[in-house]
């Protein structure tokens, strides 16, 4: 008998929660394929290490972009391999709950559930990421009070107001931490004339990236390929430069939080001033992002204790109480 599973199918990472066991898998959402034969060579962390470093016949890809499936077939293969790794076979078909961005289209919803069913799930249901994040972040969403959660993922940023187990207001933008990496890549190319890879851009973001000035303003040495000569070149980047480079992405995230606050009913708005907003998701780890949101909204912002795992833990709770909580699935009439 298979144990039921909850999956956070993120643009950056895929996490799997097994009923009665907890988180059993946490890997980057990457798959490496042989370009000529189409065979899968690696998935997860092993494939992630190959990004930008593969010979011509290997391609390491992320099958999800902006929270949506960009390649259905590859996503299905990735899900199948991940499920095999947690013990799912053709004889053990578990029920699966998958977290997806709330703004996905009907076609995208069907693509995700079909991919999970073909990959071995007996039944696949979807739950909105901000709702799962609020459950996983241990917010009192069973009470008639305003709980606000900001989930900044790799490809999407979603802000939701939740009360009495339901979403009251929601705002989503297809912008996330990968857009911050891309903005850094573009800036370095444009201003310093060197090309850097996706992983280097991410390392710069982690090392000196911030949404607001911080006390720690160290420079970072970056190596890339000179676009004029083609030779390796080293440049120094300052945190101020990176703030300038990522400003458009950060402002777009902050603007979506403000729009969500504006949509919230006044009775719940006053709760935010007392209880604050909760930040989850890997993108929320950008230095001083909580300070920036707090400065612009005048509402306290708190970081969840489990920012990277909140979504899958919330979905895990739903799988633990499947019968009682199945009314929360996307597409179920309430």
């Amino acid at each position, binding site marked *: 008998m298979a144990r039921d599973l909850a999956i*956070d199918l*993120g*643009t*950056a*990472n895929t996490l799997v929660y097994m009923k009665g*066991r*907890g*988180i059993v898998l*946490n890997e*980057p959402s990457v798959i490496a394929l042989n370009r000529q034969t189409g065979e899968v060579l690696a998935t997860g*962390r092993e494939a*992630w290490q190959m990004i930008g470093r593969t010979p011509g016949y290997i391609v390491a890809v992320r099958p999800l972009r902006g929270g949506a499936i960009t390649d259905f077939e590859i996503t299905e293969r990735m899900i199948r391999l991940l499920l095999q790794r947690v013990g799912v076979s053709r004889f053990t078909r578990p029920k699966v709950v998958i977290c997806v961005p709330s703004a996905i289209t009907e076609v995208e919803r069907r693509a995700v559930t079909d991919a999970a069913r073909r990959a071995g799930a007996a039944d696949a249901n979807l739950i909105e*990421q901000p709702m799962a994040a609020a*459950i*996983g972040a*241990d917010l*009192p*969403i*069973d009470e008639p009070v305003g709980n606000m959660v900001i*989930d*900044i*993922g*790799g*490809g*999407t940023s979603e802000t939701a107001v939740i009360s*009495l*187990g339901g979403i009251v207001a929601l705002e989503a933008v297809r912008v*996330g*931490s*990968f857009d911050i990496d891309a903005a850094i890549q573009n800036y370095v190319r444009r201003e310093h004339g060197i090309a850097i890879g996706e*992983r280097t851009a*991410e390392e710069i*973001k*982690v090392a000196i990236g911030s949404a607001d000035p911080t006390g720690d303003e160290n420079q970072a040495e970056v190596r890339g390929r000179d676009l004029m000569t083609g030779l390796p070149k080293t440049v120094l980047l300052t945190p101020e430069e990176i703030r300038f480079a990522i400003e458009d992405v950060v402002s777009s995230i902050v603007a979506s939080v403000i729009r969500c606050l504006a949509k919230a009913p006044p009775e719940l708005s006053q709760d935010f001033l007392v209880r604050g907003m909760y930040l*989850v*998701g*890997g*993108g929320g*780890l950008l230095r001083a992002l909580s300070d920036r949101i707090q400065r612009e909204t005048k509402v306290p912002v708190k970081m969840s204790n*489990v920012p*990277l*795992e909140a*979504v899958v*833990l919330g979905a*895990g*709770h739903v799988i*633990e*109480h499947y*019968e*009682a*909580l199945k*009314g*929360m699935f996307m597409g179920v009439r309430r």
Partner: protein
Amino acid sequence: MTLTIVIAAAAVAMVVLVALIARRHRTPDTVDAFRRQIDALSPEARRPVVDRVQELDTRPGSRNDDAPGGG
């Protein structure tokens, strides 16, 4: 023959009546379902999952230190 038809019609009418009454009585089920959903979202119900995370934190090498960010 006529009697059979009358009995069959009466039986169908009874079934329809019972179904209608059952449907009317089902309304409070939505209240129960909502109550069950709210109870399942309470901090007490969520405690086992939270405890499992604490176990995850205390297990050596259980967290992934070099994983890429993002969600």
